[in-house]
């Protein structure tokens, strides 16, 4: 009970300090807005200043028809040059292994006979359904979403042309007796029109795609990446700062005074750590609400998922902040440690740049940061449209980090303060 009262007092004092409020709430929103506006719409896909670039994509095209070629032409077009690095391979299994090895983010598989199945050679032939397959890196959050959107757009464009061609052909055949034999081969004529050089869905649809992807994927709004990134980044700062307050209280005499009251040391420390946790929780909650209202970003459709990721991110960050503070000699040293770790974790953990862009070693290192797991969880919900079941891995890791660091910090602080 006393721990809760100490926690509430800490939260109250923090939110009454307008300088602290700027750091807690103002800075994440303002910086996100500035960066988001500077980068423009990530839905623009591949703009030179987009933070998401060079997504490694492998195309396994076993189709020898026009449609397979069309997929490749679109994917390797100038418009997507910055966004995608496209390679071609013949072996699907080998391509999938590249994803597992972290060398590729997505594999597009176009099966043999894909074009033949969809484009009948004669009017009497029945078109049958066929599909391409997209394999993505389960560890990636944004690139699969982008690739899926692009492939869907290409497929939708192709479908439109094919449908238009088929309807026209069938209508023409239906009118053959009236129109005469000159149109008997209309089907072939129309199908011959479905050659890349004869219609421009690549460019036309791609130009259309910018809009359509933007609409279909409103999550690829720059704020949808930067606000969670900045929220996690500034959360780390405030969690270190909150933990530092225990050393500030020690130097200002309020901690020793607390220890002269009939309140156990463990209650005092739990209260202090709880206060940091509460502060962070309130900070993140306000940022979620404010960013939704101000920037119109969507935090996904899974409320339980969002609550879980937010609570466990704050738990892990406050636990880590408390633990690292135990190594500091005094509050100013704790401040220096906190700033250094927050900045490093921000850079490594994907708060500034999507971890999608990280290479193998950097990708591995980033997994040792709270930011990475938090960002993975949040982007799965916000950009990936994932649900509660999709963030369980991230939740488990964040929860584990929180538990271990909280327990160690509690132990270390008790040893420090019981003299």
């Amino acid at each position, binding site marked *: 009970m006393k721990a809760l009262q100490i926690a509430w007092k800490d939260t109250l004092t923090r939110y009454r300090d307008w300088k602290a409020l700027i750091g807690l709430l103002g800075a994440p929103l303002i910086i996100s807005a500035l960066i988001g506006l500077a980068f423009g719409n990530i839905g623009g896909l591949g703009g030179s200043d987009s933070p998401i670039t060079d997504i490694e994509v492998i195309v396994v095209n076993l189709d020898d028809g026009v449609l397979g070629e069309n997929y490749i032409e679109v994917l390797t077009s100038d418009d997507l040059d910055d966004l995608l690095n496209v390679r071609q391979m013949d072996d699907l299994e080998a391509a999938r292994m590249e994803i597992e090895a972290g060398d590729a983010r997505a594999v597009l598989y176009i099966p043999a006979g894909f074009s033949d199945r969809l484009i009948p050679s004669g009017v009497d032939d029945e078109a049958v359904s066929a599909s391409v397959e997209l394999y993505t890196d389960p560890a990636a959050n944004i690139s699969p979403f982008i690739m899926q959107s692009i492939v869907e757009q290409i497929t939708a464009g192709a479908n439109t042309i094919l449908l238009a061609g088929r309807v026209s052909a069938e209508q023409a055949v239906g009118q053959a007796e009236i129109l005469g034999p000159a149109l008997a081969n209309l089907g072939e004529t129309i199908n011959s029109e479905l050659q890349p050089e004869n219609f421009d869905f690549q460019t036309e649809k791609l130009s259309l795609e910018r809009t359509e992807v933007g609409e279909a994927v409103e999550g690829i709004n720059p704020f949808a990446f930067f606000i969670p990134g900045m929220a996690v980044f500034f959360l780390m700062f405030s969690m270190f700062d909150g933990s530092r307050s225990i050393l500030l209280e020690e130097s*200002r005499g309020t901690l*020793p005074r607390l220890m002269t*009251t*009939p309140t156990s040391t463990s209650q005092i420390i739990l209260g202090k750590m709880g206060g940091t946790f509460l502060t962070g929780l309130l900070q993140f909650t306000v940022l979620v609400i404010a960013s939704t209202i101000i920037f119109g970003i969507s935090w996904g459709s899974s409320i339980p998922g969002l609550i879980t990721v937010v609570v466990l991110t704050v738990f892990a960050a406050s636990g880590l902040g408390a633990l690292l503070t135990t190594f500091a000699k005094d509050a100013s040293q704790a401040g220096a440690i906190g700033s250094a770790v927050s900045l490093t974790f921000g850079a490594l953990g994907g708060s500034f740049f999507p971890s999608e862009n990280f290479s193998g070693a950097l990708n591995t290192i980033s997994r040792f940061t709270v930011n990475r797991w938090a960002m993975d969880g949040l982007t799965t919900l916000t950009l990936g449209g994932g649900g509660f079941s999709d963030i369980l891995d991230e939740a488990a890791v964040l929860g584990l980090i929180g538990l271990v660091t909280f327990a160690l910090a509690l132990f270390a602080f008790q040893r420090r303060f019981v003299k």
Partner: protein
Amino acid sequence: MVNPILAAHDLHKSYDDVEAVRGISFDIQHGEIFSLLGPNGAGKTTTISMLSCLLAPSKGEAEVDGHSVTNDADDVKQSIGVVPQEIALYPTLSARENLAFWGKMYGLRGERSKERIENVLDVAGLSDRADAKVETFSGGMKRRINIAVGLLHEPTVLFMDEPTVGIDPQSRRRILDTVMELNKQGLTVLYTTHYMEEAEELSDRIGIIDHGKLIAVGTQNELTKTVGQFDSMRIGLDQDGLDGEKLVAALETIKGVHRAMLENGEILIQAEEANAVLSRIVTTIDNAGGHIRGLKIEEPNLEAVFLHLTGRALRD
């Protein structure tokens, strides 16, 4: 004799190789104001920290209100109120919010909490500023709220660690009056200070502490009797070009001068009979090139006691 409300037995506290407190023993009776008087670094705060269960003694034991500081810390903490040397308050909270928070730490709830808060605000004379943030208070007002926190749960003994450090004379006067008023109402007070005048004015008994040891305990009269055979003289000097150490050595050669020392531009002298040696003292100072600005012969006081016992001035 009635059981003392506080008894310290051979308290020691060491930090690595440093012995901050070296075997302190004393007791305090119900309703007494007991002062620990000593210079900075003498061990006063360490002693009070052990008695308030903030520090565990390296050796020795103490009981407060019948509870052991080493074994019954929670009971001891409930019996004592602590006023630390620092302003141990939360500046962004109001006086009332601070008091409410600290009250909760002492287990005060509901109506009783409200009642106590109003009471101590009244004692501190800050009822009209109760809802102002502490950061807007003057140093003296902060000190008064600092004291009010220690009184919230109606402790049996109040520990006050140098509560008047760094405040203006008016605020100091108010605090001393408050302490005496609380004592009149039955509160036992353990008061630490390095101001001789405060100890003299407030205390029923005084313990003189130096280098972690209690070197004398008693009433002011009892203590001054230890230097009763000596008169004290305080001579103000212009010291330009004066070799102070040489002058002190010369003064101590005068027959009838027990001890001489230089302190803050003044020479303190203990002599068997001031009038008998005064002319020779003046001559010696004159010969040394000193120029006397003022001279005062004092009744024996705690300063003289400290000088007598340690060979140093209390302010050293």
